[in-house]
């Protein structure tokens, strides 16, 4: 059954979209990630204009992170103060990002920047995940178990001015650090149409030194507002948010996420992480292929110049 997407201005098979939403939702439920970093390239593969894919995906991530954040909120796993600082950075970053996006669109290079961002981010994250899970797996086989870890390690960055106390995270660090992380993830959110959880979570653990228990909840809490801001800004300056597309994807991903969460309880976390790392790398290779492969036709009809 075909459905006409009023903003993308094209007809797409509804079942294909539902399957896409369901599949990515399944992965996000399974691995506890937003899934935006997989959904946007997939939407582009099926022919949705990249600008619309990015704007709409931000909108879908709002829905995905609300249901996730609510679950964590009930368990008290959200550091609101930290979330707020990250958010201030995120708002600034997403404004910068949307501005950059509009500029790149006007010079016709937005597709390139989206693709390169994806190859770099997916490549780095995918490799890290696979390496990390392999290491953990090897360690767990050695007698004696994992080494005792300090509460968190202090690095020079934590000593920057504007120190702030984050009780829930048991941290006393410079506010500039989470602010910077927020800005960086905000820019990515706008350009790549992702929540940025897959970058924020490692940054919070390794850079800020936050306890793992509050990381996911806080990240989701902050992502709601950043992606809402991206959605708004993309809708206003680029008119690239397709509400019909977003709704179909939301329906699919919500169902997929629930199935994924149930499946996740039956699998080992290292295996899961290795699997996700491989999926991430596969998407990375696929995106890279479009950059390096000789195109069928070196000419293309320009979008990006406006109507």
């Amino acid at each position, binding site marked *: 059954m075909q459905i*006409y997407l009023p903003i993308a201005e094209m*007809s797409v098979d509804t079942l294909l979209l539902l399957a896409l939403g369901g599949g990515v939702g399944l992965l996000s439920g399974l691995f506890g990630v937003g899934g935006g970093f997989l959904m946007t390239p997939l939407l582009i593969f099926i022919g949705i204009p990249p600008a619309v894919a990015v704007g709409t995906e931000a909108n879908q991530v709002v829905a995905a992170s*609300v249901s996730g954040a609510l679950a964590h909120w009930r368990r008290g796993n959200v550091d609101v103060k930290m979330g707020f600082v990250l958010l201030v950075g995120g708002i600034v970053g997403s404004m910068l990002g949307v501005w950059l996006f509009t500029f790149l669109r006007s010079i016709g290079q937005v597709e390139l920047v989206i693709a390169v961002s994806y190859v770099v981010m997916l490549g780095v994250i995918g490799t890290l995940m696979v390496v990390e899970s392999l290491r953990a797996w090897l360690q767990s086989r050695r007698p004696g178990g994992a080494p005792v870890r300090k509460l968190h390690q202090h690095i020079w960055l934590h000593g920057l001015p504007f120190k702030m106390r984050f009780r829930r995270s048991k941290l006393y660090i410079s506010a500039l650090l989470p602010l910077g992380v927020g800005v960086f993830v905000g820019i990515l959110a706008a350009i790549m149409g992702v929540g940025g959880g897959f970058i924020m979570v490692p940054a919070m653990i390794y850079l800020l030194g936050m306890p793992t228990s509050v990381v996911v909840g806080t990240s989701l809490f902050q992502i709601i507002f950043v992606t809402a801001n991206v959605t708004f800004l993309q809708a206003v300056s680029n008119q690239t948010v397709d509400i019909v597309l977003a709704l179909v994807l939301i329906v699919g991903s919500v169902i997929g996420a629930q199935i994924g969460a149930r499946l996740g309880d039956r699998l080992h976390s290292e295996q899961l992480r290795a699997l996700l790392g491989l999926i991430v790398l596969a998407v990375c290779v696929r995106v890279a292929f479009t950059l390096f492969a000789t195109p069928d036709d070196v000419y293309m009809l320009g979008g990006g110049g406006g109507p």
Partner: protein
Amino acid sequence: MTMRAILALVVAALVLARPAPGAATQLVADLSSREIAITTGFAGTELLLFGAVDGPGDIIVVVRGPRRDQIVRRKVEVAGIWINGPSARFADVPAFYWVASTGPLTDIAEPAFLAEREIGFAQLRMPSADGRSAAATAPFRTAMVRLKDRVDLYEETTGVVVAADRLFRTSVVFPANLPTGDYRAEVYLLRDKRLVSTETIVIDVHRVGLGARIHGFATRDAALYGIMAIAIALVAGWLAGVIFRKG
């Protein structure tokens, strides 16, 4: 048969048999529909263009979409990566262009006539919008026509069928990615490469229903639309959380 019915038949026959007053009745044409409504389920459509002529001749049908600017880009390889390189912008490019005729265009019409009416891919004027010479933008122009042809927005066929030198028909295929606006279907009747008669029909291509309202909303009240999109996502996410809370 009653007297009255016979009389009616005779009158009808007389009206039909009357000689044609001027060129107007040498050609009559119509479309199976004069509007295309793009609904949320729109997947392209096909219209039948049909008509009658008063004797042998050649027929050309041209359907043109609204004219607008169009950018064409060329990809170039930089350090192994294909990026968007030089581009050209053309003005007055028909968003949709369909030519159907009873035979090869140059066999049935004079080149001057085809050029004047912009009939055939080669005759589309489409000047450079950034003031460059036709020679400089020629490869871009060729590429644009080829690309539009590939996505079914441009077509050139000899698909006009004539029956008994009287009736003709052709079907015009509109793809799913059809731009909206006023389309014009022009029908030309030629004899010995000379224009005998012509007729123009306007086709209104517009979005209807939910799709139209959403598109209008998104472009007119972009800020409100953005807020609504966020609100819908918030509610959907919250609902999902509530529905699946147990389990």
